[in-house]
């Protein structure tokens, strides 16, 4: 019935879903997991305050365009979760925010997130066409242009990030803007470490959204995937040791 080589994946997916639903109900019943604080997330408030003091805006971007069907889109979605927190913070503290969005599909979502926050806090008149900007395929030039044009105080760059992180990070440093960046993309993490003041690396970006919202569904996903990470490490060790002793039945089960 199942396609060849998908049996292990199928059961893993079912196990993940069941565990996730179990943790959602557990968190809803009052279980509060202890989450490690992220320096980058804790710095958001401080950086927005700095922007207010300097009278300069905060800039946010999810970076390169990512197709909805691509795995990188999940990084953009987790970036948008941070945006929803950031925009509330900016509105409450009185800082202006400029959002540059490279993906046409994500642009209306970002616009809706920012517009709703402005509307909810009763300052919709401050929301202009410049607040959320579509920067298109040549996003690097437009983002760098926006950093210079608006003389931003802080650049927050979380999502699908390419090699252009060098350019954006260096321009931010040149205009005296602090940078908070995050990407799960392994090849560009090193760039962020070199150019940013605070970074969210690997799956930290996904977990950061959970610490911000505190919703049971988000906390449950952090719990589920932490347990599955431990399980993966245990399985890797088990396969390694059993293969060393010439026994490959665990590896064969995983290939089913």
């Amino acid at each position, binding site marked *: 019935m199942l396609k060849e080589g998908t049996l292990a994946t199928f059961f893993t997916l079912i196990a993940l879903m069941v565990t996730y639903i179990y943790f959602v109900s557990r968190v809803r019943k009052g279980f509060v997991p202890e989450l490690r604080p992220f320096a980058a997330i804790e710095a958001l408030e401080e950086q927005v305050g700095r922007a207010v003091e300097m009278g300069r805006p905060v800039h946010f971007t999810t970076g390169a365009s990512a197709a909805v069907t691509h795995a990188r889109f999940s990084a953009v979605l987790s970036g948008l979760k941070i945006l929803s927190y950031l925009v509330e913070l900016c509105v409450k503290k009185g800082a202006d925010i400029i959002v540059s969005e490279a993906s046409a599909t994500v642009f209306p979502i970002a616009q809706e997130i920012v517009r709703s926050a402005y509307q909810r806090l009763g300052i919709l008149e401050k929301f202009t066409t410049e607040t959320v*900007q579509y920067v298109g395929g040549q996003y690097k030039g437009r983002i760098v242009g926006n950093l210079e044009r608006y003389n931003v105080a802080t650049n927050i760059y979380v999502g699908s990030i390419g090699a252009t992180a060098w350019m954006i990070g260096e321009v931010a440093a040149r205009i005296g803007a602090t940078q908070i960046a995050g990407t799960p993309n392994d090849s560009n993490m090193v760039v962020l470490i070199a150019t940013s003041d605070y970074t969210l690396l690997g799956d930290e970006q996904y977990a950061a959204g959970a610490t911000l919202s505190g919703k049971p569904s988000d906390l449950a996903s952090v719990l589920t995937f932490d347990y599955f990470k431990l399980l993966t490490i245990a399985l890797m060790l088990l396969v390694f040791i059993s293969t060393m002793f010439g026994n490959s039945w665990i590896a064969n089960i995983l290939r089913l």
Partner: protein
Amino acid sequence: MSEFSRVKGPIAVGFVCAMLVFINYFVKVPAISTSVSILRNNTILISAFAMILGAVNLIQVNYRYYTTKRSGLWMFGPLYIVLFPVLAYAGLMRLPVYTYFYNNIALPISVAISAFIGFFIAQGMYRTLRVKNYESFLIIASTFLVMLRKVPIGGVIWSGFVPIGNWLLMVFGVGGVRALIIVFGFGVISIGIRTVLGYERTQLGILDEEGD
């Protein structure tokens, strides 16, 4: 907008589409395969419609740059507003002027911007690669060793640079990257499961407090 059309409807549609894609991955059913390929084509169609929203925003922003005399490059606002419909028409009609503009203006500018990255890398390296503590010394030392492995002069200076660089890349580099790929995979699955089960609502532009 009603609760159904704003939240429940899109979540239900998302659930059905995701289930079709899941089933297609695990089971071979021709009807589902056809539906999934139609869905994938529709994402291109939706992206094309979203481009129109983006284009409208670009015109609005450039108009605002001009009217508010935004410091910097406000004078390019009217140029954009004039050129956009002209080039859109030329592109749709497949006129040679479109290719001319693309090959002689857009492409060289794009290549030039990408070429700048090399200089930004050098600038960034100069700014950040400083020995501040023991950890940064380790990073800088391994950077130089890997760099000497890659450049031809490294092997000429000492043949040992090549195996040391290879060892650093293949043991620490590959190990670290594989670990990151695994956790990235978990992150993608977590967002996927939350979206399929209707817990994730960011894609609908809904703020966190409104969910759950």
